[in-house]
């Protein structure tokens, strides 16, 4: 039995705002030292699936750099390992991936080389631990054409997912992609197992169909159901999150650092692997205070940190108070500053006596769809000048320099976009 995994990592993740302006969503930093895709990749290798194709498209640089030759996941092996699958041009005129199904279709030749019995189709931007052998075993037991991992979600959330209706034997009888009026609460987690022969045939037929959007949820799954193929739902009972919005990004990070986390990163039996950096252990100075937080290696804490995730190489100076925040790699925060409910992206420099996240929530004047919580977001490589005051639900773009400021204060709901 040969299983090959394809990870769809081309996602744009527009609802993460400036965080994903220059970064594919699977490469977004998470949990102090990880990037989102580490979870799916580690699940693969922990499940002994050692042939993995990663489909990239949107802003792949940082992602591809992170993946390298797959060394941190032991995927630098002969006869399998990690393969990056970018879109390409060939004589037959392939091009940008039109949809999830097209992305797999264009890589049929790659998959065929490994002659898999089953193909596991995954996303690169979900946070969860799962032994894929469970779903594969279930798939084999049911002799299914396809099996979709799913879990119950609240009715109010159902419209964000692919919703399934099943018979008493878990066979899927109906599938609705992001329905306005969901017929149930059993949601697809974007984790699929297919018989390769079945999937290949479906993909080839889909590619020829001009009316198709070449999407798994919109086209392949509904069509297969219509043709009476055997598709089953596999109930997943563990922790699974689609970190799609700024709010869920913050929540999920803070959930994982809680005292009894629903997903334990310190669990020795299911390690999450990542590209580790060469940094010394974290230093917590005399007079500093750290409570309920992750403080990653290479960080130096002289101030106060509460309920926050501090990534690698971060400096928090004396007199500074950081609360309910996510501070990504190599951020420097000056003295006597106050940071609350803020996501600060990598390599950002925050000056002295800066206040971020104070005041009352106000609706975003920039984009209500993206920025609709009391979380403030500071982009990559930006600089925040001394004594700056920034309210709630604000956004500072990537690469903002000191000369880009013409104000002393940014009120809640406002921001600087370049």
């Amino acid at each position, binding site marked *: 039995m040969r299983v090959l995994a394809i990870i769809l990592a081309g996602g744009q993740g527009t609802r993460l705002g400036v965080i994903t302006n220059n970064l594919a969503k699977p490469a977004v930093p998470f*949990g*102090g*030292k990880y990037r989102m895709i580490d979870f799916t990749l580690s699940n693969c290798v922990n499940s002994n699936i050692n042939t993995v194709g990663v489909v990239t498209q949107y802003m792949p640089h940082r992602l591809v750099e992170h993946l390298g030759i797959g060394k*941190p996941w032991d995927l630098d092996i002969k006869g399998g390992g990690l393969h990056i699958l970018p879109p390409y041009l060939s004589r037959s005129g392939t091009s940008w991936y039109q949809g999830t199904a097209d992305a797999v279709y264009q890589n049929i030749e790659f998959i065929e080389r490994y002659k898999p019995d089953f193909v596991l189709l995954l996303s690169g931007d979900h946070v969860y631990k799962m032994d894929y052998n469970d779903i594969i075993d279930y798939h084999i037991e049911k002799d299914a054409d396809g099996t979709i991992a799913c879990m119950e979600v609240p009715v109010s959330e159902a419209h964000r997912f692919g919703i399934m209706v099943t018979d008493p034997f878990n066979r899927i009888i109906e599938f609705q992609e992001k329905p306005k009026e969901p017929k149930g609460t059993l949601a697809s987690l974007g984790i699929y197992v297919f018989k390769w022969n079945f999937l290949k045939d479906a993909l080839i037929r889909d590619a020829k169909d001009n009316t198709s959007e070449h999407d798994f949820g919109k086209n392949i799954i509904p069509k297969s159901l219509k043709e009476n193929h055997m598709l089953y739902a596999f109930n997943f009972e563990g922790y699974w999150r689609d970190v799609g919005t700024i709010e869920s990004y913050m929540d999920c990070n803070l959930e994982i*650092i809680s*005292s009894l986390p629903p997903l334990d*990163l*310190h669990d020795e039996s299911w*390690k*999450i*692997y*990542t590209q*580790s950096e*060469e*940094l*010394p*252990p*974290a*230093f*917590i*100075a*005399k*007079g*500093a*205070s*750290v*409570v*309920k*937080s*992750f*403080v*990653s*290696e290479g960080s130096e804490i002289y101030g106060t940190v509460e309920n926050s*995730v*501090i*990534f*690698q190489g971060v400096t928090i100076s004396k007199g500074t108070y950081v609360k309910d925040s996510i501070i990504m790699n190599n951020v420097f925060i000056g003295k006597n500053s106050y940071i609350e409910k803020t996501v600060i992206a990598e390599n950002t420099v925050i000056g002295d006596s800066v206040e971020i996240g104070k005041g009352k929530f106000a609706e975003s004047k920039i984009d209500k769809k993206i920025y609709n919580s009391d979380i403030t977001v500071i982009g990559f490589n930006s600089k925040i000048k001394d004594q700056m005051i920034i309210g709630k639900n604000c956004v500072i773009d990537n690469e903002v320099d000191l000369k880009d400021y013409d104000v002393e204060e940014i009120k809640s709901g406002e921001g600087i976009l370049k």
Partner: protein
Amino acid sequence: MRVAGLILSGSTKDNLDKLTLKRTSAAVPVFGKYRAIDFTLSNMVNSGITNVGVFTQYNPRSLMDHLGSGKEWNLDRKRGGLFILQPFISPQSHKMYYEGTADALFQNLTYLRRSYEDFVLIGSGDHIYNMDFRSLFKYHVKNGADVTLLTKTAEEGTNFSQYGQVITDENNRITQIYEKDSKYRSSKIFLGVYFINKAFLLEMLYANVPNGKFDLLKDIIIPNLSRMRVFSYEFDGYWKNIKKSVEDYYNINMDILKEEVRNELFYLPERKIYTKLKDSAPPKINVNAEVSNSFISDGCIINGIVRNSVLSRDVYIGAGSVIEDCIILQGSYLEEGSIIRKTIIDKNVRIRSGKKLEGIGNEINVIEKGAVL
């Protein structure tokens, strides 16, 4: 410049008590996530050396495990790379050990002859420093030296009987070395790092080792100082030898709590210290925990109070525990309510709840690897 690196990884002659019962001094854990050898190895690699031989003989298992293929130091190469040089039995010799530095080199002549480098840098695996050797190489060549020794002006309180004291002339040429002399002769001490022309070294070995001269410094260099051109190169940074005593080991680890030491050892972008990386999650400091003036490695979970301490990877501190002035090595688990002061806890120790351990006066407790208390 083509330089081969050689590292001596320690012998039975160290003073680290229980810390080297099961490992050689080069493999002693230091600063939370490192092993002593990481410093010399990284210094060599950062100075452009891509061919490194490590002499092992005493308790090598954990050292070999740490070094692996040399991948972490970019030494998993087709040309050059990392070589482990262990004593071996052959038809010529049934001696399963090295009698001294020169003997170790002599028994590995084939390796030396085959390496294409013209110079050899010999260092020790138990020294803590961050140095770019390239200026030493230039200095050696400029002087037309046969041998250049790395030296340092001794700090106050140095026990001179543990070092070689070096006397130089006005050109820094070494005229005399007093090896492990308890009497004060010179504030310049030898740091155990040699830079030698390879052809010259081979000649010296052939001429001396078969005659029972097994120590490079005592038997070969010191008696021939007047005939060789031996120079001293002064290093003025942070330099410590970890194996001199348990107290030194403890103090060196605690030095990392000083900002200037951290900056010198770890925050030079061109001269990073590499080590075997593990994938432990970032340290988690829970509610009711209190951490101050401490160095905390990945994988730690802290529920108690930690002050003035260095914690290696995957250490667990239970709620209500008080840890002060301690060094706790990898994987140790301290249950609730333990009170530990001025203690070195080796790897994988389990401290039962409510246990109290304190060094008396200036004495430092050492808890053996794997102990359950």
